[in-house]
């Protein structure tokens, strides 16, 4: 399982533990595929529904167009669905899921990271982008936010975009290619948790820290160490624990037949915070127990 999801699991387990203290027994299945695939996802959703064992099924939508019709069909058959984490398919996409818990501002996250990068570059320079998986809503929205910011500033040119399929190794290889091909590269924007790790490694190896400026997402320990060392300029970190915790509390209400309204919103918005180099020591300590 991707390490991002481990942090979400912690929140889920804490919520379940707190319910247990009150005498309420909650159980959940939390399974990840080997790699993101919308087709694999719809098979899993169908299998889960067929078991008829679940009061609520939660989905981190891999592809809105492919997954939404399947969710709607299963809802019509009487199953309850919610979405969670970083990717929603909501009413605006024609999806009848009951509620969403997670990041509701991926587009803004992309914008904020890109504004930070452009500010550092003094609104002049050549930048590249690493996205993640094609069609994954959260990555595409961040990329879209980033592109809209680049378009605002005449002096900034987006010269390449690559999809690394959420693999830090692929991100590393793509970054090496960027560095070789574009000797005037000034910055890289990374749209998920894996690609700042790969980009940071390539830039460090090339001795270009401080010359090629990296911004990225989330809390991988290696990325935070790169932040500490000045190889990454900024990281936008999502509150994964709350995503997990609130997913369970929302699912319990849905299972009890409560509709979104006063007890819980249709979209529970979880925060993203941008951190810089002087925050790195605190992050390493609080997340990983590393004292420096």
């Amino acid at each position, binding site marked *: 399982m991707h*390490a991002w999801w481990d942090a979400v699991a*912690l929140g889920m387990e804490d919520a379940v533990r707190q319910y247990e203290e009150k005498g309420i027994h909650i*159980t959940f*299945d*939390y399974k990840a595929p080997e790699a993101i695939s919308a087709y694999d996802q719809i098979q899993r959703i169908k299998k889960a529904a067929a078991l008829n064992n679940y009061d609520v099924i939660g989905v981190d939508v891999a592809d809105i167009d492919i997954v939404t019709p399947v969710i709607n069909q299963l809802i019509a058959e009487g199953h309850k669905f919610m979405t969670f984490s970083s990717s929603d398919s909501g009413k605006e996409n024609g999806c009848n899921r009951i509620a969403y818990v997670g990041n509701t501002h991926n587009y803004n996250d992309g914008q904020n990271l890109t504004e930070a990068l452009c500010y550092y570059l003094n609104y002049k320079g050549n930048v590249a982008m690493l996205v993640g998986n094609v069609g994954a809503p959260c990555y595409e929205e961040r990329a879209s936010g980033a592109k809209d910011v680049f378009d605002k500033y005449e002096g900034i040119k987006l010269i390449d975009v690559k999809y690394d399929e959420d693999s830090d190794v692929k991100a590393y290889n793509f970054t090496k290619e960027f560095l070789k091909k574009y000797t005037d590269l000034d910055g890289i924007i990374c749209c998920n948790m894996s690609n700042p790790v790969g980009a940071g490694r390539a830039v460090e190896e090339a001795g270009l820290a401080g010359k090629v400026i990296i911004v990225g997402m989330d809390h991988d320990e290696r990325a935070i160490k790169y932040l500490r060392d000045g190889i990454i300029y900024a990281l936008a970190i999502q509150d994964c*624990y709350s995503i997990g915790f609130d997913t369970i509390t929302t699912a319990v209400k849905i299972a009890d037949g409560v509709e979104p309204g006063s007890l819980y919103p249709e979209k529970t918005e979880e925060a993203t915070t941008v951190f810089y180099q002087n925050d790195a020591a605190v992050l390493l300590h609080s997340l*990983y*127990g590393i004292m420096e």
Partner: protein
Amino acid sequence: MKKLTKRIIHITSASFMILLAILLLIMSLRTADTTQEVTDKAIDRISHFYIEEIAKSRATLISDELDKKYNYVKNALDVITQKDLESSKALRNYLGKMRKLYNMDTFALVDENGLFYTSHSTCSGKTRYPFLAETITKTIYSTVLNYGGEKQLFLAVPVSGVYFNNSKITACFVEVILIK
């Protein structure tokens, strides 16, 4: 002449007395130093003795706790039946019973696909528990760092001959809490 002799005697006596006084002063200071040194060494020895005793006692406590947990796990695995493995609900009931019986915070079974089962959940777990990355062939103790900087200690024991949901159960692991 007599006066001179007397004077010489006086000077000599006075010098001798001064020398004696200086000597006595030096000897007193050295004795004080030596006494301090002896006292310090005695304190050191006593402190080391207590520290060693405390450490031995702590090591015994920890060792006893680890042995106890190991025995709990062995006992729990000994009583698992085919009925406990008939369904997810049955398995969770068994895991919950064992967890409460032996007062454990986490009690989990792991299958060959890396799925781990607890009384509350079925999860993909290899990244969460790095010690599951390799096949467990003997009893191991491992620490896992949770987000939030909290370290957890786990005991993992290999399991054989148990199957659930057409998958082989390969290990059982529990959290060991040394201070509650």
